[in-house]
């Protein structure tokens, strides 16, 4: 499976030629085709120095190059270990052109895996060209409004075509490209070598036969394989009618013409582009030789356009937001002024009645004080009255003491201002005597009363001191006052 990569081995090319324009630079002649509304048409036929379009066109394009300045080389690398392919290819390309690495544009395709001297090798086809030359060509084409996105080698197209149509038998693929004839040798569907020569001389047919014989001889010598088939693409009618029988008899191999594309009859000058018109998918796996700077610049341009669009959108949004904010701020300012005027009016009215205000304030303070005073009343009479119902007849109270819990707190904390007695609980401290003579009766009566008191004042706050109860009948209690009477 051939592998196509960007220069630097970045990613596999994904090209859809059926939506783009394909240009073919054959030496200095620039030809172009495009697909318009599903139909194929010729859009350019001119020299590279003065490019012009036959139809109004724009957008992206792919450039196919066949020039003498483009060099090709088959590179074999060990299959096993992982090697820095991009770096190796860059060095090979520079060596091939005899130039510095940064002056070289190159690309490569994997041809396949072969065994050489007992070692498995990966075989690549490397194409290299002067980078400046490609940049100039791309710039010339940009002048007519076409942006070249990929630069392909014509040989790469032939290799792709041959890989598909040659089968496993060793053989020659002959492709007529207007005044050029390409002869490409394939063995087991793998590219072997490529020869190209000019047509149109007087003794062309004889020359052509000799060239086939030379190629067959070279294949035998170099690749140790006899040519067993010849396949011809884009062949002119004279070749089909006159040359094929002669060729078959002289080389003793079958010569099969490949199906001709419809466009060949109308535009024979398009040459290799006719192969693409027949099958646009043919260009998909080819490698691109666009120099990294050009690609980077293009990427930057795209990025710039995108960022410009985003910036314009954001500026628009900000503009809308600013307009809204400005009008809102204007409204707020008016509201603020209105409030300020109202406040001024109200305050001047209040200023005129300052005396009343002071008087009212003083009254308010007095009312608050009165409220606090009323709230601070402990309602002690209720507690005392309640107590009188809780004491049985046999018990005689000797003394009752009570103290406001707030008063026991430090003066600094409470101050002099009255307030509700939160926190501390008030107690009625009671001392009394049980009048029964017998200690058991005293004890029983006191216990009964205590149980009763515990029901009335539940909780742990009820405190009892009864050490003298059995001897003298004396006791003391601290009864918590209920919150209602506080």
């Amino acid at each position, binding site marked *: 499976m051939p592998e196509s990569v960007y220069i630097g081995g970045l990613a596999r090319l994904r090209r859809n030629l059926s939506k783009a324009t394909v240009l073919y630079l054959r030496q200095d002649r620039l030809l172009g085709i495009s697909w318009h509304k599903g139909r194929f048409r010729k859009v350019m036929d001119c020299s590279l120095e003065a490019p012009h379009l036959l139809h109004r066109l724009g957008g992206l394009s792919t450039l196919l190059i066949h020039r003498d300045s483009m060099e090709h080389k088959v590179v074999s690398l060990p299959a096993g270990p992982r090697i820095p392919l991009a770096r190796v290819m860059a060095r090979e390309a520079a060596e091939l052109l005899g130039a510095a690495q940064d002056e070289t544009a190159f690309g490569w395709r994997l041809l396949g895996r072969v065994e050489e001297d007992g070692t498995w090798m990966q075989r690549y086809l490397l194409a290299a060209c002067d980078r400046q030359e490609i940049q100039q060509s791309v710039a010339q084409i940009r002048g007519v409004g076409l942006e070249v996105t990929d630069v392909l080698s014509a040989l790469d197209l032939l290799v792709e075509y041959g890989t598909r149509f040659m089968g496993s038998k060793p053989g020659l693929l002959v492709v007529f490209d207007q005044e050029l004839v390409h002869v490409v040798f394939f063995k087991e569907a793998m590219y072997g070598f490529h020869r190209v020569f000019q047509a149109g001389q007087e003794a062309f047919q004889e020359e052509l036969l000799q060239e086939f014989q030379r190629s067959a001889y070279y294949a035998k010598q170099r690749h140790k394989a006899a040519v067993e088939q010849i396949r011809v693409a884009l062949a002119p009618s004279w070749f089909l009618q006159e040359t094929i029988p002669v060729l078959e008899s002289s080389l003793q191999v079958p010569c099969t013409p490949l199906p001709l594309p419809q466009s060949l009859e109308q535009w024979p000058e398009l040459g290799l582009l006719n192969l693409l018109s027949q099958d646009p998918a043919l260009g998909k796996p080819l490698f691109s030789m666009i120099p990294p700077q050009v690609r980077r610049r293009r990427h930057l*341009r795209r990025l710039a356009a995108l960022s410009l669009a985003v910036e*314009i959108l954001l500026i628009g949004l900000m503009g809308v937001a600013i307009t809204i*904010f400005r009008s809102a*701020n204007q409204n707020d300012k008016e509201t603020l002024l209105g409030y300020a005027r109202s406040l001024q009016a109200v305050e001047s009215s209040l200023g005129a009645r300052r005396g009343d205000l002071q008087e009212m304030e003083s009254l308010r*303070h007095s009312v608050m*004080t009165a409220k606090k005073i009323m709230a601070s009343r402990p309602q*002690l009479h209720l507690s*005392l009255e309640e107590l009188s119902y809780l004491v049985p007849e046999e018990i005689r109270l000797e003394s009752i003491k009570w103290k406001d819990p707030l008063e026991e707190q430090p003066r600094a904390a409470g101050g002099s*201002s009255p307030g509700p007695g939160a926190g501390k609980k008030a107690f009625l401290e009671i001392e009394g005597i049980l009048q029964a003579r017998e200690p058991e009766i005293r004890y029983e009566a006191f216990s009964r009363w205590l149980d009763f008191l515990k029901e009335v004042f539940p909780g742990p706050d009820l405190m009892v001191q009864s050490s003298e109860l059995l001897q003298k009948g004396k006791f003391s209690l601290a009864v918590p006052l209920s919150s209602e009477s506080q």
Partner: protein
Amino acid sequence: MMLPGIMALVLIGTVVYYLILNQQSKALLKEIKVLEARLEEARVTLRALEEWERVRGSGLIWTLARWVPLFGDPLEARLRLEGRILELLREAKAAEPWVEWKASIEEKGTAQVRIRARGVFPSYQAVVNWIKELEQGAPPMIPVSMEIRKEGMRLRVSADLKVFFRVEHGSL
């Protein structure tokens, strides 16, 4: 390539301007809220003043004077308050009535005095009634501490009371 840079600068400018406007808007809103609160407060005061005008002539002032009495001077206050306690002791038929004017303090125009009252009461009910009168009468005399001790058939009672009042002239 220059245009995105210029537009980026414009965008930054608009963002900065937006932020400034945003800040202004926040400051304005804050100011509006403050003014609104002040205006509301002033209006409430104005309404209260109008209410005050209506109340001024009514019996509220008199009612207030009932709970926090207003005396001409401290001496009058002492005489009147001591007299009131003695009167209540007499009403409760307490023997040996005795009143002692203790510490007094003044705070924000309201004075507070501590008075100790003593008496020997004929019954427990008389003590309860006396305390009830102290607490619920006008002016209210709020018990701070109290001690009831049995003396034969009678009850000796000693109570510390606090009383609030106002003085028109002079100070404590």
